[in-house]
């Protein structure tokens, strides 16, 4: 089995599906000859040609809107937005059209498109290259919001996203694009959408996270194990629609829940998870649900970004307080 990085998983999934299905078109800024600024589409244009791997004019709203038109015509567009910080012109198309095409026409038209964008901090980039605004997208009915956090899940979930009959916003944690390698069978096997993945079993506390924070969260779980605290780690993977059952089952077992995300705290997606646990799991809780998140500030530039991003220490602190509560 080939060893893949997370971005390698993205590339392999795109290549697999383009070879298998000529309805799949890949497009965006610098994704053709250059293979994308993160090389997620490297080699695709050489292999599949410029009609299917398209360098677009520099216009994000166009990229999203064009995907809607292609999808309505029965193609399988996979659009790349270079950084999440440049994705906001696409919100109009996603909110006003992609998410509504099926509903608006009572199923006459549909929108099987994928909009990929790298997100999150920690790569020492300029302003607008480090945000985590996934909650904006996760608020839109009719969309799916999917975030892989390992090479295998990047491969399997992206295949599922391309094959899904409805629009998917696929957010890639760029800080861990090349952090780890994993053996992944390039066999075209998709992973299920709409489910959370339990990536580490535990009995004392449930740690819920997604994206690049999986890395710090697993490190914290490792250290906690040495202290005799058994942490279960859940990768949410699909934010909308949320698999509440996996989270509630875990909390029923552990009685404690800490949610970790990079995005600012207020109105972040952690709030939704905390509300679900409060609504349906309150009587199983031994301690209040806690969050470890970015602050309610603008994402700082690189000199201060490590102070913004949740660290292993901050996760450990919060876990200790939660454990000590009862």
């Amino acid at each position: 089995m080939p060893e893949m990085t997370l971005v390698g998983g993205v590339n392999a999934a795109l290549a697999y599906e383009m070879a298998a299905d000529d309805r799949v078109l890949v497009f965006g800024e610098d994704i053709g000859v250059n293979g994308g600024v993160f090389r997620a589409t490297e080699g695709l244009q050489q292999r599949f040609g410029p009609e299917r791997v398209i360098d677009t004019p520099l216009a994000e709203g166009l990229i999203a809107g064009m995907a809607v038109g292609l999808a309505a015509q029965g193609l399988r567009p996979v659009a790349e937005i270079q950084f999440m910080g440049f994705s906001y012109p696409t919100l109009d198309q996603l909110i006003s059209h992609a998410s509504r095409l099926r509903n608006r026409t009572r199923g006459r038209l549909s929108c099987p498109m994928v909009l990929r964008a790298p997100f999150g901090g920690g790569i020492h980039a300029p302003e607008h290259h480090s945000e985590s605004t996934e909650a904006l997208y996760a608020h839109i009915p009719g969309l799916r919001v999917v975030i892989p956090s390992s090479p295998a899940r990047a491969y399997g979930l992206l295949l599922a996203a391309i094959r899904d009959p409805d629009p998917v916003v696929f957010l890639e944690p760029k800080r861990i694009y090349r952090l780890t390698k994993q053996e992944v069978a390039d066999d075209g096997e998709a992973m299920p959408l709409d489910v959370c993945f339990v990536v580490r079993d535990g009995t004392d506390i449930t740690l819920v996270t997604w994206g690049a924070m999986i890395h710090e969260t697993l490190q914290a779980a490792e250290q906690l194990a040495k202290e005799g605290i058994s942490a279960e780690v859940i990768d949410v993977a699909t934010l909308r629609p949320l698999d509440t059952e996996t989270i509630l089952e875990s909390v029923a077992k552990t009685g404690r829940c800490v949610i970790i995300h990079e995005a600012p705290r207020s109105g972040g997606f952690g709030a939704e998870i905390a509300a679900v646990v409060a609504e349906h799991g309150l009587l199983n809780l031994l301690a209040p649900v806690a969050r470890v998140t970015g602050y309610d500030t603008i994402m700082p530039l690189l000199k201060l970004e490590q102070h913004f991003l949740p660290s292993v220490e901050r996760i450990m602190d919060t876990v200790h307080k939660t454990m000590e509560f009862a």
Partner: protein
Amino acid sequence: MSFLLNHYRQGSLRHLSLSKEACHTQIMSMLGEEEGNMRCVAQFEVGYTGYLDHELRVTGPLPEFAREPVQLIAAYRAMASARAFDRKAINLQRTGQLGTFASCLGEEAIAVAVGLAMRPEDVLLPMYRHHGAYLSRGVRMAELLAYWGGDERGMDFQSVREDFAVAVPIATQAPHAVGVGYAFKYRKEPRVAVCLLGDGATSKGDFYEAINAAGVWELPVVFVVANNLWAISVPRTLQSRAQTLAQKAIAAGFEGEQVDGNDYIAVRDRLDQALQRARSGQGPCLIEALTYRMGDHTTADDSRRYRDAEEVEAWQRRDPLDRLRGYLLQSGAWSEADEEALQVECQEAADQAAQLYLERPLQPPASMFDYLYERLPRAYAEQRKALADPNDV
């Protein structure tokens, strides 16, 4: 106003352009004497087409299709039908039986020309005003009334099933037309995407981004800008300093032209040409059709707040239906008796459509969940159940 009426000079085709000498002179005057090294590297023309003016004068040799009355009568009937639909919709709204409605009054020549010039397999991406385009393509009046009456099923047309639903956010359908056009080109299908926009839409980034991309990829897309001189209360003169809206296409690398939008013959002729070029792989085109919004923006608007009655009256004399009917009467192809019969027929069709719309059983409330995704995710099953059966929760 005089500036705007100036566009309606006679002549079947005029060009708004600078001669090479004038271009040179203008550039020299910008530069000043000492930097007189600049050359004219590009110059452009914008054509204007009109065949039949509002005084029923034929201003040039008619195109083939307009030499016999058959097609013109069919078009006139479609325009009359579209107007009857419009009247019916407004009546229904005024009596509380329809939601807010956007009237097409005065723009029927453009709407019907678009609908009749397209082939069934082409794809229409309209804004919300030009009902006659849908109707001429086979969409039923009852379907459109359902949509404007607040029922999503109205956009589930039983014909032209690849046409887009109306785009309410301005110009947002223009990038869709790029996607549709790209799909046609990618699959090597001789089909065309027709995107209907208003004058206000040409101020938006979506419009610029879309025409730019259509130009880059030479897509089979025809952009039709129905310039009715008003974007709700903001006049054309405040949308852009550009002499024409058509010339915006030039910046995108393809041809833009103006047409008398109240002259069915002219709109249809230029659309036929543009569709034929697009269909045969010669790329996109932009047609700015000059017209006037004779009614309010919608039934929720009162245009007396921002424009003069005399302007509206001046445009009433340019009514596209009066013009085509006048021409047909004058040429003996139509009679007052034909007209009376047609009016009765149109009224009956609109009444019947209204009846169908009003009698249709409502959708169950839980249907709001049923087309959100192909299959409703488990996460929302409980919400749907609570709505479907509130006593069972």
